[in-house]
């Protein structure tokens, strides 16, 4: 769908690494260029026309994001540099202040590094305990296993909505309902889910959500921290400085602004915020439900074709998103990626930042194809043709 919107696709390229980042439509590029060319001033500061326009566009983007994830209040939308910063703020600005030694956080072994390392750090710094919810035979999280994993010390469950290697979708709404009945907070890492399907934070009822702009047709260096307003009120700013303070005189007399500005210290990434707003409107125009349906259909098409190739070992035959993780028998994943690169096909090889997943699936490295709505059956056909010919692959992988 919508291939013509993407300047990158005008070149001879098949881009199948959307889990890493996505391509940008012309409208997002134009929107950012327009800022730099016609009203390039700072936000929240100037008393002149173009700065006033910046404020308007900046806050309009916040409203776009609020609407996009169906949040109740604009104050719940904090702009960050990406999911990583959002998750670090959640751990360090909120949970570090309310967790005691031996309190537990539940994650899984298929989380991305960004939803593992902030918790590891809290374990080292203040003595919380990181525990893992066991995954089932298909590497899925079930509500049953969540129920079995909680203890009186469990304070928070932090899970990706969709994981970045296995591509399984977690029953976040059910888990959150159960968690709240037991006074446990829920953090959702939405990096791989928010770009690919409708997200309704009110319906899911999660306490915090983190996601990145660049994985959803937006610019790099911008992301979102969503939090329930009453919780964000208690979040300590991890950065303090310009923009976020109301007044200060000495260390004992420092007053911060209200949400959301209180949590956005320094000059923000204005162009990227405005670009993200445009990306959100672009996705809404296509329709998140249409995107989800299209990707699922394309994934099924790809899977059916992959299954015809005997020397492929597919790690996630079952998955709910456009991700296929696989290996070619006897050929190291990176060599395969290198071979595909010769034909201008971009796929990812490696451990995909999920370094503890290997203990779970027994495979350290794999190839990952991750789809988005601008991919086509013809992209898959080209990929399958190259993967089918193992002799050619061995011949050309150097």
């Amino acid at each position: 769908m919508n291939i013509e919107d993407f300047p990158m696709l005008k070149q001879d390229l098949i881009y199948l690494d959307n889990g890493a980042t996505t391509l940008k439509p012309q409208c997002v590029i134009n929107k950012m260029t327009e800022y730099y060319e016609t009203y390039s001033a700072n936000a929240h500061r100037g008393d002149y026309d173009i700065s006033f326009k910046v404020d308007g566009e900046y806050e309009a983007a916040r409203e776009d994001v609020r609407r996009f994830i169906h949040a109740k209040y604009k104050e719940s939308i904090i702009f960050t540099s990406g999911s990583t910063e959002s998750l670090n703020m959640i751990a360090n600005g909120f949970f570090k202040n309310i967790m005691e030694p031996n309190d537990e956080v539940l994650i899984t072994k298929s989380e991305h590094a960004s939803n593992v390392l902030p918790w590891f750090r809290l374990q080292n710094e203040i003595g919380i305990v990181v525990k893992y919810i066991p995954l089932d035979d298909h590497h899925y999280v079930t509500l049953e296993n969540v129920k079995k994993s909680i203890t009186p010390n469990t304070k928070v469950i932090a899970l990706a909505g969709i994981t970045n290697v296995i591509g399984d979708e977690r029953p976040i709404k059910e888990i959150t309902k159960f968690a709240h009945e037991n006074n446990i907070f829920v953090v959702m890492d939405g990096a791989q889910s928010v770009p690919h399907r409708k997200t309704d934070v009110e319906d899911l009822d999660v306490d915090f959500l983190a996601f990145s702009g660049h994985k959803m047709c937006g610019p790099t260096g911008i992301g979102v921290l969503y939090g329930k307003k009453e919780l964000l009120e208690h979040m300590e700013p991890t950065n303090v400085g310009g923009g976020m303070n109301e007044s200060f005189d000495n260390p004992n007399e420092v007053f911060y602004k209200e949400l959301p500005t209180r949590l956005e210290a320094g000059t923000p990434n204005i162009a990227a915020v405005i670009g993200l707003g445009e990306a959100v409107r672009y996705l809404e125009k296509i329709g998140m439900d249409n995107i989800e349906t299209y990707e699922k259909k394309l994934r099924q098409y790809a899977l059916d074709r992959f299954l015809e190739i005997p020397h492929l070992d597919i790690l996630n035959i079952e998955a709910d998103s456009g991700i296929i993780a696989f290996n070619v028998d006897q050929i190291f994943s990176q060599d395969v990626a290198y071979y595909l690169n010769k034909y201008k096909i971009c796929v990812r090889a490696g451990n995909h930042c999920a370094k503890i997943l290997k203990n779970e699936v027994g495979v350290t490295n794999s190839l990952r194809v991750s789809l988005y709505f601008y991919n086509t059956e013809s992209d898959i056909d080209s990929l399958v043709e190259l993967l089918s010919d193992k002799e050619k692959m061995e011949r050309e992988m150097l």
Partner: protein
Amino acid sequence: MDENMRREIIMEHYRTPLNKHRTEDKNYQFVNTNNSSCIDNLDIFVKIENNCISDICFDGEACAISTSSTSIMIRNLIGKTIQEAKEYIENFEHMIQEMDYDEDLLKEALAYKEIYKQGNRKHCAYLPYIGIKKILDKYE
């Protein structure tokens, strides 16, 4: 050495690498070397006796270029004094950085003489050398 020959050498060392096994022997020094931009991860074990490299073995997960390069490095370094080994490594570095080098010293490692053309694979070929240098640099 033409392109086919270079290819053949690399593939042969990739398919049947020399000394690809671990050792628990305490007389070996151990180093891990990995590539932050890709996924190659090698453990290298080196035995040094009387200022001379008497044995090297390795294990790990790595691509065709890294694996073969390690195997060839091992073949070329066993039996060398530390000084000779350093000289060999310096020549290899010069080759992949497109500087002047002595072809005769490098033998099969000449298979990577054009690897500089593939920026993303240059580092793969060099990876085992980063590891072994950490050990050799301990010696004057």
